[in-house]
């Protein structure tokens, strides 16, 4: 058996990894082996990051861009959850629907969200619709898959119990399949949030007004690699915060259910 690692040790180890990464990066950047435009140093990226926080670049501050991005992300993610979770549960319940939808779904989910960019722009425009569709494309599959798995792996005795009590399908889905699938759905949402947030830069390549992705594209156009990297840092930090929040929600729900089962 492996030795258990305490929470404090894991924090220390995580920080150690981060510190060595930044140290190595800094070493490489200041060594003069690589041109400064190709690889700005961490200090420069940090400076740029703080500058972006209080001075507008490409029409907004970094917070402004992040807010615009997050808003799109939230719409796309919520839409994916609102459509994906019920669809997954229904597919788990009605075999006919499963047979009809699964092959199509399984093929479509391998198309990278970025590949939808031209159509997203054509169909929903470059305002808010297009980017939402791309985030949706990234966030949708895990919602469906995990709700479906949750519904498929529900204790068959509970279904039998519900059936013998004369429960109609719509109530079995809401009162048996859904609660029983909650752990699976929550882990699906975590994966889904990650993929949706990842698809964001791709989504914002086609946005003309604001967003972290847009800011990075503008940075690229101005050969400001520090701006691009500051954008990457911001995306990483928000992604980390998002994942931590969902992980916490997952732990709380699982702990409560651990008592229940």
């Amino acid at each position, binding site marked *: 058996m492996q030795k258990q690692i305490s929470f404090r040790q894991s924090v220390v180890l995580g920080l150690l990894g981060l510190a060595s990464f930044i140290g190595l990066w800094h070493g490489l950047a200041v060594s003069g082996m690589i041109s400064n435009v190709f690889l700005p140093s961490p200090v420069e990226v940090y400076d740029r990051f703080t500058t972006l926080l209080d001075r507008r670049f490409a029409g907004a501050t970094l917070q402004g861009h992040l807010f615009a991005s997050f808003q799109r992300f939230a719409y796309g993610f919520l839409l994916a959850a609102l459509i994906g979770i019920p669809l997954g549960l229904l597919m788990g319940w009605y075999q006919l629907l499963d047979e009809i939808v699964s092959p199509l779904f399984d093929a479509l989910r391998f198309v990278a969200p970025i590949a939808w960019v031209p159509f997203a722009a054509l169909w929903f425009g470059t305002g808010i619709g297009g980017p939402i569709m791309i985030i949706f494309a990234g966030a949708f599959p895990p919602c469906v898959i995990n709700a479906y798995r949750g519904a498929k792996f529900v*204790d068959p005795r509970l279904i*039998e*119990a*519900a*059936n013998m*009590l*004369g429960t109609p399908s719509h109530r079995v889905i809401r*009162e048996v399949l859904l609660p029983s699938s909650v752990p699976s759905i929550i882990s699906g949402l975590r994966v889904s949030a990650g993929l949706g947030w990842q698809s964001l830069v791709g989504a914002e390549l086609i946005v003309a007004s604001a967003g972290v992705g847009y800011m990075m594209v503008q940075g690229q156009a101005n050969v400001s690699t520090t701006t691009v990297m500051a954008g990457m840092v911001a995306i990483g930090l928000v992604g980390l915060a998002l994942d931590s929040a969902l992980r916490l929600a997952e732990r709380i729900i699982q702990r409560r259910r651990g008592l229940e089962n």
Partner: protein
Amino acid sequence: MGVIQFKDVNKIFGPRETGFQALQDINLEIRDKEFVAIVGPSGCGKTTCLRMVAGFEPATDGMVTVDGTPIKRPGPDRAVVFQQFALFPWKSVYDNIDMGLRNLNVSRSEREARIADILTLMNLTQYAKHFPHQLSGGMQQRVAIARAYVLDPDVLLMDEPFGALDAQTRVVMQEELVRLARKNPRTVLFITHAVEEAVYLADRVAIMTRAPGRIKEVLDVASIRNAEDWDSHEKIEDVMDLESFVHLRTHIWRSLREEKAAQHA
């Protein structure tokens, strides 16, 4: 009413030629308000009999009917009590019992009254707001029995309901079931592998053979119970000491042991 009838029932799992024959030529009629227990060696198909009445499994040949109507699907007229309770873990005791009532066309006030009654009858009133995981196995099975009884079903199907309980709890539950069944008689099909339990509870005991399960013998316990006045004894251990009880139990034991021996031969 609640007359259960098995007519020339065969059950084969898988294809007819190569599948597993679980039941063969089952013929049995359970009269209205009669309590019939099926005992048999494990794997003899006794649970399959119950699952066919519940509407969980179709018969391969023959017919299973309730009041003459062939069974097509599960329904609240045939309430099931499962060995593993099968309570909804995310619903309180009250909501678990309400789950089936909500499917009947019954007013809210009547539902509340019926749940209050059954909670009192099963000594569960103070646990109405508890969740299943907060209760012991015996209490959980009480909730499952309440959930079935509250529907006022014609037929009650009990699949080794006390099999997951410890010995002491089991005895208490058996006594309670007798109390409940006398007070509020239903047609009951009770599956068990515990011989004493079958003799103590049932009006008739059907003994099954090993797979493919057939009905080997049906014993009339009720006439002996009445003749020897078992019900005048309040405690199960007093009934179990009676000569007439011991005699019946031994008879069933022998019969089952022959099946075991045949299995090993």
